[in-house]
């Protein structure tokens, strides 16, 4: 009887399906949720909180720099602030934000009900949360790391940073990479094995492609920084000599290991953003974006080439010029796929009557800001020029233009675009437009003058500067502009909070978009789709607007969590995967592993204890159980 109700349209069947996929309410149960929408939502919200925290740190830094020889902050605290600003933005905002959007949207876009490993998903979130909280607790205790977000040795090593701050950094960075790697593996497997029947790789939405490329990049880049931070932790804890010149080690080895990760990292952040741009443009021009194949190839090329650029962060270290030249060429090369994408998008927008809603405004803002950042990027790829502007405010200007333009603007476009899907309400257009205007103007007023400051010789990472340098006026203006920028972001925050209760009802598809997530309700039901869809084209909702003529999957049970596994390339139905229900083990394992990493800083033996305890947690997690049934008493 159970089987028949899967394609039964009766309210009872729907009610059972809903109960099966429900995340149980209550405070304690919150720690057992494994649904991709809950976990994705948490990633996005938490990343925005870290964004606000890191941004506030920046405002405090700007207040210190508002005048020469200012005494608002001491040197040590300022150094902790800029380290925390960079570390938080890169590790705790940018990557988790993109992952969060991916975790929330990818299953919906490919027509499935959850990700391949829901408990691993939850585990990744708790690891992220614990790592972020630990680092900010360190800051509040005045024990934050203070050697910059890329922690160059020997400064970051035990001889010159004997305090706990750098230990927090090495431990928590290694720890949070586990979260990113878990999400990456999951996203890859979900995208490869759970696409709706008929969704060949050629019919996958561009955003899903971008998440796939991002995830592969994470897989190969993050382990390198984990290896590096482990070696640094060993140097610090056990006096090992990996980065100590007098012991046969090399400080430059750290730079190689870090930047081999660090350069792909910024593209890891940017690639999903490019996917968002394609998505929003397609929707607001009401036609498929031009150059699907070119755009996919550009994403993949960006992913590959980004691994060949890392030495451009080391142009001034005294490496042989011939070797460095290779990296100039590679750095120039990566501009080509970016150029292809920019012009595919311009071609898509050409001659089309576009609706200038807030998501589209952020997309247009992306064009201006990102192109400026990209152009200064090509400039700093030139070795002689870089020898002047490396480690100066010119680079600070460049990196903020590409990150704000290439990641924050698209992310905010995505926020305004998908907020209705996630919450069922539209964000206020008026507040959105004001927010956009302030962010756009604020970004330019804050960061453009920094190019000038760098050329005028102002190095980066300085807590103060002397009166006679002539840098005071620009710094003053920049600090004021930073508050304009912050106000812009604040408006979006207010918009997001207020619209939850006062926004206009969104309906299923307020933008009349073409990807599958808009076929679900807003917000989606527990089960995402009443019946998993079958697709026959790249733009399922546009090519088949008549609901009654679309095709679906039947035969999945409603009393336990089942979803369809399809083949890798052709997405033919292959088998059915039985999913776990809510579980506390991911949280417990995260606690235990966190205990190991945090404990290591105080007593290395505690890491071994954590390692041993994690075996039990993993055993509890993986111990074979009968498939979870929603009809059973728990």
């Amino acid at each position, binding site marked *: 009887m159970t089987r028949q109700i899967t394609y039964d349209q009766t309210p009872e069947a729907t009610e059972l399906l809903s109960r099966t996929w429900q995340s149980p309410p209550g405070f304690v149960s919150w720690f057992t949720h494994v649904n991709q929408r809950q976990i994705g939502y948490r990633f996005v919200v938490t990343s925005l909180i870290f964004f606000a925290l890191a941004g506030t740190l920046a405002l405090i830094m700007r207040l210190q720099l508002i005048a020469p020889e200012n005494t608002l902050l001491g040197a040590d605290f300022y150094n902790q602030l800029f380290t925390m600003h960079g570390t938080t933005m890169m590790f705790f905002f940018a990557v988790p934000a993109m992952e969060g959007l991916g975790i929330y949207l990818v299953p919906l876009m490919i027509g499935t009900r959850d990700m391949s490993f829901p408990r691993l998903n939850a585990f990744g979130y708790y690891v992220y949360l614990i790592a972020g909280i630990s680092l900010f607790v360190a800051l509040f205790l005045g024990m934050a790391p203070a050697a910059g977000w890329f922690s160059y040795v020997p400064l970051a090593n035990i001889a010159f940073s004997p305090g706990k701050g750098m230990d927090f950094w090495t431990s928590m960075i290694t720890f949070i990479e586990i979260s990113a790697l878990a999400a990456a593996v999951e996203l890859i497997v979900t995208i490869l094995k759970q696409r709706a029947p008929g969704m060949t790789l050629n019919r996958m939405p561009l955003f899903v492609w971008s998440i796939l490329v991002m995830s592969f990049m994470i897989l190969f880049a993050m382990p390198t920084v984990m290896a590096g931070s482990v070696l640094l932790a060993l140097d610090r804890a056990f006096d090992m000599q990996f980065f100590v010149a007098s012991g046969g080690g090399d400080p430059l080895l750290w730079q190689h290991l870090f930047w081999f990760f660090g350069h792909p990292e910024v593209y890891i952040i940017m690639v999903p953003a490019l996917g968002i741009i394609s998505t929003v443009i397609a929707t607001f021009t009401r036609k498929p974006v031009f150059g699907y194949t070119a755009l996919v190839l550009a994403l993949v090329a960006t992913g590959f080439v980004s691994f060949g650029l890392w030495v451009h962060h080391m142009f001034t270290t005294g490496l042989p010029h011939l070797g460095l030249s290779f990296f100039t060429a590679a750095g120039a090369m990566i501009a080509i796929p970016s150029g292809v994408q920019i012009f595919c998008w311009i071609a898509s927008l050409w001659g089309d009557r576009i609706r200038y809603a807030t998501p589209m405004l952020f997309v247009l803002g992306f064009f201006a800001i990102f192109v400026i950042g990209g152009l200064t990027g090509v400039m700093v790829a030139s070795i002689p020029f870089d020898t002047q502007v490396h480690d100066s405010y010119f680079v600070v200007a460049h990196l903020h233009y590409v990150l704000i333009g290439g990641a924050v603007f698209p992310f905010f476009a995505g926020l305004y675009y998908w907020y209705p899907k996630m919450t069922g309400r539209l964000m206020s257009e008026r507040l959105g437009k004001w927010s956009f205007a302030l962010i756009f103007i604020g970004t330019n007023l804050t960061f453009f003058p920094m190019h000038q400051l760098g050329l005028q010789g102002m190095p980066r990472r300085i807590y103060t500067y002397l009166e006679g*340098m002539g840098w005071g006026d620009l710094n003053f203006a920049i600090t004021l502009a930073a508050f304009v920028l912050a106000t812009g972001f604040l408006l979006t925050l207010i918009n997001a909070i207020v619209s939850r209760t006062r926004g206009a009802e969104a309906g299923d598809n307020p933008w009349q978009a073409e990807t599958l997530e808009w076929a679900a309700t807003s917000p989606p039901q527990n089960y995402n789709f009443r019946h998993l869809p079958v697709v026959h084209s790249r733009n399922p909702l546009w090519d088949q607007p008549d609901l009654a003529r679309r095709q679906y999957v039947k035969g999945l049970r409603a009393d336990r969590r089942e979803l369809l596994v399809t083949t890798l390339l052709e997405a033919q139905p292959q088998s059915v995967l039985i999913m776990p229900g809510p579980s506390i083990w991911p949280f417990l394992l995260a606690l235990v592993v966190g205990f190991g990493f945090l404990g290591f800083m105080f007593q290395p033996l505690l890491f071994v204890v954590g390692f041993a305890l994690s075996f039990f947690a993993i055993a509890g997690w993986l111990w074979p159980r009968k498939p979870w049934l929603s009809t059973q008493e728990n």
Partner: protein
Amino acid sequence: MAAGCGLAALCLLSAGATAQQIVRQSALQPASTQAQSIELLWWIMLWAGVAIFLAVMALLAWGLWRGQQHEAPLGLTASKKFVLLAGVAIPSVVLVILVGGSLFLGRSIASAPPPDALQVRVTGWMWWWQIEYLDSAGNVTATTANEMHVPVERPVAVELVSGDVIHSFWVPQLQGKTDMVPGKTNHSWFVATEAGEYRGQCAEFCGLQHALMAFVVVAQPEAEFNAWLDHQAEPAPTPTTDAAQAGLAVFEQSCGQCHRVQGTRAVGVLGPDLTHLASRRTLAAATLVNNPGHLAGWIGDPQRVKPGNKMPRTPLSPQDMNNLLTYLGTLE
């Protein structure tokens, strides 16, 4: 002692606001052949960049404006041509020119210095610069700190090393920066084309007082430079007045563990060599203008000027301080 500190603070406060020379640090005011080439490269790239940015924005704006007027999206073929031309062909050409030009320029800047170059070894320490002039055999002929003189129109080859963490030697008006990496010896060279004073600053984050680790490079005509160098090689003159002799005794007792003055019993090497302190334009790694008020303030309370730097407070009676300042004033 308290009065000494009070005096020190007063001197700092009164003298701090005016920097008599605004010594510039701008890469856009080059004073060497290398810096001039880089500046030229910058202007070329800037105008190319502006042109490209305006072109891309104009295309975007035009496309959007056309859409507002009447809906006429680009067809498939037109779109393909557009992307191939604007996204692949033109960027490729521009990039090849840029990369080629940069590599060509870079090679000449990175090439070995001519054999007749002046050899200087600069060692970066937290947070000051040790400067040693070398003869052709590599022996040290003169040692100074935080202020480097160079002859105009003659190549200067700097050998860059570090005593502790990574620092970076950067004088924007004379040359791009090169890092000082522990365990490695790096090289850079430049030819100053104009006499003048140029400011340099550490450009690799090196800890607490990275912000105030700067130095001065003085480019002089060859004859003046040679006179300066010969003088720097000489030991300090023996003090003649009573006050100066008393000051020397204070120095040897309170400062000699870290600082060296050639010709005295102060032979410390933990801090800068002070043999010709009075001839320098600045103090504390180009943080303060060198005058008695600042010097008193610095000696009395270095932690006030550069909190966390390695020079401890040295409490001295006003009499000792005055004698010390008198002695230090003789170190031309």
